């Protein structure tokens, strides 16, 4: 204890200094002590010296002379000791807080180990990988905290930490880092979190397909349009020389030629011509393939089909005689016979070969009567049919034309469908799908055939026998139809009668005036009586006739 030990715990120096102050003059100033043994310590000696008189005065001056340097020395000593003390304290505040009792516990604890252990924790943290920082760091922090708590309590030595203290630390970072190296594997980010092209392959595929479809739509539409225009340009002259009105869509107030085709669809074009002798009008329909639909294009690769030109000439009633006749490919005729109302009723026989008249084998004939065939197959017609057989699908002349058979769910229709005298032509465009605008010129002779047929139909008249046969046929067909629908017609008539009666009764009931009511009722009664009488009369007449 004393000045030699600089690391002494802090003790309130104020209390120590007086002791030291007392002790030090005794140790270091023996002269002053021995010279005047009687003299009390200088601090207290001076006032005491003042009381002893003259002797005391000289003694006093002598005392003062001696006490002054002693006092200085004491001060010096005190100051040096305090300096030594202050080296330990960095903060002046800490000096005041500690008591004597506390010092015993904290003999060996200084601030040095405390900063050392956190440093150690930090370094271990730096060694580890980032993925495991949180877990390991937390555990390390906990360990560090434990160490901090343990160190002041467990360690009683004043020396700094041994290597023993840090054995665990050194091992642990090594083991943890080795552990970290094994389980860490770089996992691929899942596809739906990636931002690359591969994750969108379905979308790219579908959009490409859609674009292809749209491209095909535009290309197909344009091709059809070009084909239609080419056809019209080729035929325009012929049509305009035969018809007053070429091209009409029915919307204009006046009947003026529009001079262009009606586009009904992306693949169907119409043209209406009218104003000619012997026919009401002619409707030309260009039925192209669905080039705008990619599915159709692909289907056609499997099964080639041709573009078609359908012409329907509506004849005046007086300009055409009564017959039904058809020429065309065998396949087409079989189909038409099944589908068309008039062909199925009037031409019951199978399609016959036209070889007798010089037609090629590909064409067949459906006719109501032999006479019609004879009349129709004149030289020119045969010439047309033979030369353009590949382009002709079907030619159908009929005065009983009513369109295809209508399939009704509730049995037969009650009335015969309306018939019109028509000439129908169906031509195939050459090329079997791969048509070019210049192919349309090949169809021009066929239009000539159409015009010729119109005139022929007007000229051709059945002789008397033929006419009788034709009339008989028509009567037969009508009768058959009526028989089939007899029951239904009766039911319809019955229901109509009942409705009439109901209406009358309602009228009577609704009449407010009672007189009028009575009168109406009487009128109804009379009518019923009359009907009954008539029926009875009829029955009597029939009986009489039978007899």
């Amino acid at each position, binding site marked *: 204890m004393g000045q030699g030990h600089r690391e002494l715990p802090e003790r309130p120096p104020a209390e120590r200094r007086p002791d030291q102050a007392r002790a030090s003059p005794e140790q270091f100033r023996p002269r002053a002590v021995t010279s005047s043994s009687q003299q009390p310590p200088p601090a207290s000696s001076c006032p005491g010296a003042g009381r002893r008189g003259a002797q005391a005065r000289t003694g006093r001056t002598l005392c003062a002379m001696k006490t002054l340097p002693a006092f200085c020395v004491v001060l010096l000593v005190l100051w040096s000791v305090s300096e030594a003390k202050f080296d330990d304290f960095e903060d002046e505040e800490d000096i005041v807080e500690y008591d004597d009792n506390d010092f015993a516990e904290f003999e060996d604890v200084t601030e040095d180990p405390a900063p050392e252990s956190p440093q150690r924790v930090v370094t271990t943290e730096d060694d580890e990988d980032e993925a495991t920082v949180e877990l390991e760091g937390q555990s390390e922090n906990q360990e560090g905290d434990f160490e901090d708590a343990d160190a002041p309590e467990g360690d009683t030595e004043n020396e700094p930490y041994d290597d023993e203290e840090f054995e665990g630390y050194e091992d642990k970072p090594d083991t943890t880092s080795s552990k970290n190296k094994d389980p860490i594997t770089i996992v691929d980010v899942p596809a739906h979190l990636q931002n690359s092209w591969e994750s969108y392959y379905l979308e790219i595929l579908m959009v490409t397909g859609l674009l292809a*479809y749209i491209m095909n739509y535009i290309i197909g539409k344009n091709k059809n349009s070009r084909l239609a225009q080419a056809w019209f340009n080729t035929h325009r002259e012929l049509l305009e020389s035969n*018809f*007053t009105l070429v091209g009409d869509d029915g919307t204009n107030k006046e009947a003026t030629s529009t001079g262009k085709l009606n586009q009904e669809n*992306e693949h169907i074009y119409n043209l209406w011509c009218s104003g000619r*002798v012997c026919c009401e009008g002619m409707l030309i329909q260009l039925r192209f393939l669905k080039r705008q*639909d990619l599915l159709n294009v692909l289907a056609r690769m499997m099964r080639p089909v041709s573009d078609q030109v359908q012409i329907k000439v509506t004849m005046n009633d007086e300009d055409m005689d009564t017959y039904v006749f058809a020429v065309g490919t065998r396949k087409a005729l079989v189909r038409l016979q099944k589908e068309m109302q008039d062909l199925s009723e009037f031409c019951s026989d199978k399609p016959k070969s036209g070889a007798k008249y010089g037609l090629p084998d590909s064409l067949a004939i459906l006719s109501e009567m032999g006479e019609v065939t004879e009349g129709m197959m004149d030289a020119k017609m045969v010439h047309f049919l033979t030369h353009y057989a590949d382009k002709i699908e079907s030619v159908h002349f009929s005065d009983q034309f009513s369109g*295809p058979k209508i399939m009704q769910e509730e049995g037969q229709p009650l009335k015969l469908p309306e018939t019109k005298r028509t000439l129908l032509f169906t031509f195939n465009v050459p090329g079997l799908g791969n048509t070019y605008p210049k192919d349309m010129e090949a169809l021009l002779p066929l239009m000539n055939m159409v015009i010729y047929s119109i005139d022929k139909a007007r000229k051709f008249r059945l002789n008397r026998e033929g006419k009788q046969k034709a009339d008989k046929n028509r009567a037969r067909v009508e009768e058959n139809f009526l028989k089939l629908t007899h029951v239904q017609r009766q039911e319809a008539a019955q229901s109509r009668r009942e409705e009439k009666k109901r209406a009358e009764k309602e009228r009577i009931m609704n009449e407010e005036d009672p007189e009028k009511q009575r009168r109406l009722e009487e009128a109804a009664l009379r009518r019923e009586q009359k009907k009954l009488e008539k029926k009875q009369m009829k029955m009597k007449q029939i009986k009489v006739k039978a007899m």
Partner: protein
Amino acid sequence: MSTNSMSDPRRPNKVLRYKPPPSESNPALDDPTPDYMNLLGMIFSMCGLMLKLKWCAWVAVYCSFISFANSRSSEDTKQMMSSFITHNP
């Protein structure tokens, strides 16, 4: 050759106006593809929406495209566009 050499076959006084064919029988006879494709498109779009199947939605888009391409021009363009837009989810 098709016309009489002396007279003109044209008769301006016998001009008949074009009457569009009655629409009663035509829709039944005409190609039913656009209607079928319309229906399929609606069904697939509902399926794709409810069951969250991406391929269903794409098939619905294709169906609506096909229906549009095959449609008859008698239908309004507005109707087509509105049906086209609603079918695409």
